[in-house]
């Protein structure tokens, strides 16, 4: 698919075409382009800057403004086991659990799809593609009803498997694309030495696509970590809920007074995702890797 081979598009030199024909008018256009971009960047950063500044502000309000007194009191106020650490741990269990399940299942499924010509392989890929498009919000009410029937409501494993299943179509698609780029000749050598398909997959293919697997895992992890609606509907007891849900409960209870603490909690919860995104850009060598994967 077009997007999976992500091109570092934005790095294209700004010289090129315009450089050869540069005149005063083009220079003016360039200055204007830079100014417009800076203005857009300021508008985009303002809502996020509030979270950052308010979290260190002793008297935080809902409006962005430089604090009179810088403090870390907001952070120390929320860093209690039941308010922060347990929900963050739950979020980690949910995200790492569904990430691990998704990667294993996706690798297994991608192998035959990538290596054999199967009559129904095409239809399977079509259904997978269809699955990537299905709006998950649309199925949450029926999922709730289904979980009632299966007696899986408020079950952490049930939620993990559901989240793994919803990210599986995209993961299979990405994994298959990564696997397609591993040359089959290496496995053929392993086969002639008597290795089975699964041994070849484990000893030859997987080591060669480690970065790809890391990208898929992080992709699923980040999605699960940020997911609010699924655990909000499927997990009922506070001691099982991940940070996304407990932060919303905090907002409902104290959100209208303790803005600084809400911002501090948000920052703490968002930090791992931002870090992982930077990691993915390092691994794949392109800042737009996740979008490329999504697009593909």
């Amino acid at each position, binding site marked *: 698919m077009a997007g999976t081979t992500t091109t570092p598009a934005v790095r294209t030199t700004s010289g090129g075409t315009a450089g050869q024909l540069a005149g005063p008018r083009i220079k003016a256009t360039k200055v204007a382009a830079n100014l417009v971009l800076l203005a857009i960047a300021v508008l985009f950063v303002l809502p996020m800057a509030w979270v950052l500044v308010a979290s260190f502000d002793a008297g935080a309000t809902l409006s962005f403004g430089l604090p009179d007194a810088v403090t870390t009191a907001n952070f120390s106020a929320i860093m209690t086991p039941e308010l922060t650490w347990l929900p963050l741990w739950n979020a980690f269990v949910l995200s790492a659990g569904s990430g691990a399940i998704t990667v294993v299942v996706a690798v297994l499924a991608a192998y035959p799809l990538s290596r054999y010509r199967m009559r129904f392989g095409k239809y399977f890929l079509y259904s997978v593609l269809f699955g990537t498009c299905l709006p998950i919000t649309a199925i949450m009410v029926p999922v709730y*009803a289904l979980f009632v029937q299966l007696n899986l409501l408020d079950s952490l494993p049930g939620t993990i498997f559901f989240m793994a299943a919803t990210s599986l179509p995209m993961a299979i698609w990405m994994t298959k694309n990564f696997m397609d780029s591993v040359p089959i000749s290496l496995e053929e050598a392993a086969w002639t030495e008597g290795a089975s*398909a699964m041994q070849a997959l484990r000893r030859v293919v997987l080591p060669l696509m480690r970065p790809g697997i890391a990208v898929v895992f992080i992709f699923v992890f980040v999605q699960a970590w940020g997911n609010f609606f699924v655990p909000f509907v499927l997990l009922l007891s506070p001691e099982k809920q991940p940070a996304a849900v407990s932060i919303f409960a905090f907002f409902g209870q104290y959100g209208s007074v303790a803005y600084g603490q809400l911002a501090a909690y948000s920052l703490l919860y968002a930090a791992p995702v931002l870090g992982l995104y930077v990691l993915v850009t390092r691994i794949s060598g392109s800042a737009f890797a996740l979008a490329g994967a999504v697009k593909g």
Partner: protein
Amino acid sequence: MAVTSRGVARVVPLAPAVVLLALFMLGPVVWSFYGSFTNAALTGPAALNPEWIGLDNYTALLGDPEFPKSLWLTVVFVFLSAVVGQNVMGILLAGLLRSAVKPVRSIASTVVVAAWVLPEIVAAFAAYAFFHSEGTLNTMLAGIGVTGPDWLYSTPMLAVIVANIWRGTAFSMMVYSAALAEVPPELTEAAQLDGANGMQRLAWVTLPVIRRSISTNLMLTTLQTLSVFTLIYVMTGGGPGTDSSTLPILAYQEAFKFAQVGYGTAIATVMIIVGAVFSVIYIRALRPEVD
């Protein structure tokens, strides 16, 4: 016999994926169609043993003034924030990034992507604080002597549409950046030598070349925006009243606030069908990649 057993061995690794997808993706879709014909409730006997009530939920849906209103709000939300907002902003940003100097380029793209990478609930809080009557927007307006309205109450749709453009533009920007990088420079150069101005080059050279990316991106942003729940739920709760209740919010409220799971499921079924139609169009466009 040997052929069959080899065929089976090849298919076995697909089994876990098939089971998971069948149980948790296909299952809910089938259940959605079935459940929308029952009186399933949130608690009580009708939760575990719902009764078949035929088309009653759909008749109720058509008679309920909230449904057409919600459908209309969804169309407005998807059209203005995804089809127009994110796409136009995305292509504009992608174009501007190409003619910007490096520091500006990295600052702008980092900031735009950051809004997209943030967990949705944090993005929703940030947008809530920005549009709140005492928020950043009104503070800025006060700075130039304008008293801003209470955006979340007086213009809830405008607030959530702008917030969704802010949140989602990065995706379109990245797709279009990749697409623009693949436009052969000779084409635009030739047009420029023939005297075409910037707008003409965009309309007659660049856009036709990247049309495939445009249609892909339109489909994906439409599907993503169709299922936006958290942003609206945190910012306005679907209110005031039901003035910003798009279909996901309406389905959630009918099922969990008013305990009408069957009725909420009927709304969900409508969303699944809408999503499926868009998906089929999208997949048809991508067909060569699979075959």
